[in-house]
């Protein structure tokens, strides 16, 4: 069995949605932004199909707004205050150092928290054939991965980076579910390391162009090692194809001052699906819905960290 996802949207329709979104965003001085983002996702998810059935996005603008407000309250405001202590207030130097350290560590923790929160929210708000996706990884696990990953990457002058990437991908994929069925990722850092090392060595002779090939290789590797039940994903994207996509997309955006982005977006999705397939048997009869509490409104701080939230 061989299945490809398909995308049915058009740049023109996306542009029309974008025009209405833009007007409402301008008129409401930006408040509509969250609803605009939701409209956009509803369209993009709704135009994506596999096995003839389309995905559905169930998020709301209100949830996105509250998620952003929460993040601003828990991270934005403290970071702003600490930076003010560091730069503006007239306090002794040790206090400034402590403020700078606290601010830096908050920023550092923010990224894994935001990544997990966004994934939890987006998957939890996505369904196919009436069955919800979900993400069940714990945010502190991600913080640990990012913490140790950054540490070892710095220690090895960047050579550890592919191992870090694989650890992150393992965490992100293996805690993703469709109903009660789990996704699997069995990639290993050392496989990616060879390509990474090659890309570093070829950077000068190819003037950096080899990194396009590395990105293509990474994409293939990540998809080829992702499985769902007995089925496995397969990706056949190549460096030249990816380079062609990027050059044309870049030119389109450059020549239209960014106005062509709906078409660029559609081109990128269609490109990704052209090379992506799900191979093997898909036993849909076995999959059962499992209710997950994915609210954008977690209670308390721990609730905040492990409830999904999204920054739009």
């Amino acid at each position: 069995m061989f299945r490809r996802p398909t995308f049915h949207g058009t740049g023109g329709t996306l542009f029309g949605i974008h025009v209405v979104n833009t007007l409402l965003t301008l008129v409401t001085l930006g408040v509509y932004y969250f609803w605009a983002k939701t409209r956009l996702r509803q369209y993009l998810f709704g135009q994506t199909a596999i096995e003839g059935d389309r995905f559905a996005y169930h998020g709301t603008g209100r949830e996105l707004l509250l998620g952003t407000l929460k993040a601003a309250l828990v991270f934005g405001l403290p970071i702003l205050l600490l930076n003010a202590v560091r730069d503006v207030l007239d306090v002794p130097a040790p206090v400034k150092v402590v403020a700078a350290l606290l601010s830096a560590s908050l920023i550092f923790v923010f990224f894994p928290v935001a990544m997990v929160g966004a994934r939890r929210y987006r998957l939890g708000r996505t369904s196919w054939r009436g069955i919800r996706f979900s993400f069940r990884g714990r945010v502190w696990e991600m913080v640990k991965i990012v913490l140790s990953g950054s540490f070892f990457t710095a220690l090895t002058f960047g050579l550890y980076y592919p191992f870090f990437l694989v650890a992150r991908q393992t965490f992100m994929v293996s805690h993703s579910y469709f109903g009660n069925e789990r996704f699997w990722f069995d990639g290993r850092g050392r496989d990616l390391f060879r390509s990474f090392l090659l890309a570093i060595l070829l950077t000068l002779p190819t003037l950096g162009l080899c990194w396009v090939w590395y990105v293509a290789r990474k994409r293939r590797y990540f998809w080829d090692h992702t499985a769902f039940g007995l089925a496995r994903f397969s990706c056949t994207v190549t460096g030249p194809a990816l380079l062609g996509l990027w050059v044309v997309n870049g030119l389109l955006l450059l020549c239209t001052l960014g106005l062509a982005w709906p078409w660029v977006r559609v081109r990128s999705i269609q490109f990704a699906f052209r090379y992506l397939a799900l191979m093997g048997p898909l036993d849909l009869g076995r999959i059962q819905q499992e209710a997950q509490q994915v609210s954008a409104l977690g209670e308390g701080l721990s609730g905040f960290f492990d409830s999904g939230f999204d920054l739009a």
Partner: protein
Amino acid sequence: MRSDWTGSYLDGRSAARQPATVRLMREGLEITTAAAGTRFWPYRELRQTQGFYAGEEVRLERGGELPETLLIADPAFLESLHEAAPHVGLRFHDPRRRAARLRWTLAAAAGVLAATAAIYLWGIPLAAVLVTPHVPVAWEEAVGRSAVGVLAPPERRCEDPALGAALSTIVGRLTAGRPSSPYTVRVYVVNRSVVNAVAVPGGSVVIFRGLLERTRTPEELAGVLAHELQHVLLRHTTRAVIQDVGTGLLLMALTGDMTGPMAYGLETARALGELRYSRRAEEEADREGMKMLLAARVDPAGMLAFFETIRKEEGAQPEVLKYLSSHPMPTERIARLEALAAAAGPAEPVLPGEDWPALTRRC
């Protein structure tokens, strides 16, 4: 109107599609499946989540957390639904209204253009004018210190005492009428051949040797300084930063996103957008600078003569291009300054008895 349709039913617990027949009634749908028989779905409990665009299946959902779903592939179903139950109104999409949707989208496009123009022409400049006075001078000074460090590194500064005294006299003359200014003005002369002068936020002006040597009288330099001092006093850098942020936000609202290659396209748009704002600041500094000269009883002919020199050298002297790129010098700009200078009263020499050309070469 057709009342019987075929579709698929999803129970919200498994991903299996169950074939279903659907009958359109006045108050709801009658749905029959092999497994569960016939049930009735009132319209008011249903919501449509798909089928708004050509080629999409119609999807109707019922229930909260884990809804049941009905899928009907034939888009004509919606038209029949509206005929069978005209009272449902906007609860379900009506494909016959798609032409109107297109008209609304076009109207929205016109609205976007109008709103963008209004925000760009009035909204952002107004916001900048309102916010600028509330930015602490201490912040400008902090930014200015690091800018001076880059533009005028200590080893490149001309520390000649006679030149320094002459510059202080000129600045003193110009600022005598404004004792309440929050800025302490400092002028740095930098030993570089470029013909340029830069106003740094927080009260500093950097003048390059190339420009200094091209002035034939102290009045000419006073003209350049008056212009640059106005940039400082009118807080044009702070205003430019606020306008920069405003333009960025506007572009973000217009494109929805600013990541990846998008950022490059937007950078060009942003640079183009700011040209208008910077031209405006230049005109303002000209006008207010000329007023400053007149109030200090400095002969305005010096400012005009210097700008005229610069304009004539355009193209012939690549060094001059630097000043022109930040200070465009079209003929109408000089004409505007001449009109303002016409109101000049009797002038007093700025540095009587000094050998100016010799002073400018002491750097």
